[in-house]
């Protein structure tokens, strides 16, 4: 579904990403872990179009999307979230949801100026869907609050909701559990699990090892930009290189 070939990126003298070949299978929940500075977020930036690579190619469903613009990659069904949660601060929660829900398809100026009845209909459908998702995420009571008024955890939920309203094929989650209390982390995990069960391919960068090992079908370990281990959680956990580079000996 998503293939990466010879992807390299340097920042000055630092090798941020240096990956020969990875492909992600449809419907799999993959986690990418690794120490700080391992190139996880840069990898996301590269495949989602936010950073141009020095070399290499990225294919989404056999289509070359190397150096495509971020908006065009999002329209092709690969949606990402950000390490520092981003929401549209000066829009309400429902506006946030509906804005993301309405823009991947038709957006001609003419049609937006003429409020055609089909469009009104369309808008109602999006609104219903937005409320459904918000209910699942337990933020529907905040629908009319401004997004800037939400707590950090609620923003995380809104970001998650916003990213799934268009039925993405691939979801790139950048630290979905960062800075979230244990109870909410549990909730978010079960939502991610549910999304995966619904057939969305998920690639997640996360530091919470317990959570990663619990829900991932595949774990990729990056260190200094390169893949040092790749496989199911049990296999990766026992990999000596991983223990040395990241997991530690376990008696800290």
């Amino acid at each position, binding site marked *: 579904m998503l293939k990466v070939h010879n992807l390299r990126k340097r920042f000055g003298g630092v090798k941020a990403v240096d990956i020969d070949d990875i492909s992600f299978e449809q419907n799999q929940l993959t986690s990418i872990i690794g120490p700080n500075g391992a190139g996880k977020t840069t990898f996301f930036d590269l495949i989602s179009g936010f950073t141009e690579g020095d070399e290499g190619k990225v294919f989404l469903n056999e289509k070359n999307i190397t150096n495509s613009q971020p908006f065009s990659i999002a329209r092709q069904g690969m949606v990402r979230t950000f390490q520092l949660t981003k929401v549209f601060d000066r829009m309400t929660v429902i*506006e946030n949801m509906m804005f993301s829900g309405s823009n991947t398809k038709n957006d001609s100026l003419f049609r937006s100026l003429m409020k055609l009845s089909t469009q009104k209909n369309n808008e109602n459908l999006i609104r219903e869907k937005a409320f459904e998702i918000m209910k699942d995420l337990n933020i529907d009571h905040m629908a009319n609050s401004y997004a800037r008024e939400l707590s950090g955890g609620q923003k995380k939920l809104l970001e998650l909701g916003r990213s799934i309203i268009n039925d993405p094929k691939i979801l790139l989650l950048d630290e979905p559990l960062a800075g979230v209390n244990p109870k909410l982390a549990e909730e978010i995990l079960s939502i991610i699990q549910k999304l995966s069960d619904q057939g969305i391919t998920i690639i997640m960068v996360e530091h919470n090892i317990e959570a990663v090992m619990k829900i991932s079908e595949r774990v990729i370990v990056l260190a200094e930009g390169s893949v040092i281990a790749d496989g199911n959680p049990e296999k990766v956990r026992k990999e000596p290189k991983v223990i040395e580079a990241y997991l530690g000996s376990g008696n800290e």
Partner: protein
Amino acid sequence: MIEQFGNGLLLGIIISVASVALSLLYGVTRIVNFAHGEIIALGAIMTLFFSNPIDSKILFLDRFAPLGMNFSISIVIAILICGIFGGLLEIFLFRPLRKSEVGNIAVLVVTIGLSIFFRHLYLLFATGRVQNFPLELERRQTYLFFDMTPRNFQVLIAGLFVMIFIGLFLSYTKIGKAMRAVRDSNELANVSGINSDNIILFTWIASSMLAGLAGIFQAIINDVRYNMGFLILLLIFAGTVLGGIGTSFGAMVGGLLIGIFVQVSVALPFMEGHTEAKNAVALAIMILILLFRPQGIFGQKERIS
């Protein structure tokens, strides 16, 4: 006092239109555009160039006679030229700067450079003379409480309509919503499928057209000068800050208030014979208001977490 209030409304509506334009651009692109004043002047100078009678003695670049076109058509063409001007600035200057991640301060200095460059280009093109649009003199009439010429009253009404139009546009059209989205987070807008480059281009064009319109208003009420935009720029900044930086509605109200403060302060007893100090009084009031409401009248305090 009431007479000055009417003048204040007129000045206010000009500053208001220009402030909204500045504020839109700042909100979407984070550019503090010091060349905004030159786009304002461009609107007025272009209108003058297209509409002045061919046989008038004024020559542009000391050589070209004006075109003597219909005044309304000249206004439309001038506004379009301003839009194209803004679009070209974005495509050939500010987009490349953005792509190579030039910092905000450097970009600000670039706009100061542009401002100086174009101001002096206008000095060459339209000379330093104070000029007037080819409009007949009108007698003042009373509208509600205010005495003003019918033409100035039309400017006031047109300005109000423009404000309402901008408000509706931002709230209800898809492209207006997209502008608000890019203003909040460029990255997130992209992830939502918005081509932010197109939105930024549109914002440059819209902001420049509005600036040009403000310049034309200013020239109708007063006159055309090569540095007319620069002279009013400080008041426009004041209007934007007073209303709350980055909020369009705030810029509208802030601009209007600054205009009223400036003109009404002329009528204050201690100002007699010192009318050239009117801007000082207005800006002092602005500072006082900001002391009590640092985020501006309509600015929002951000939740910092």
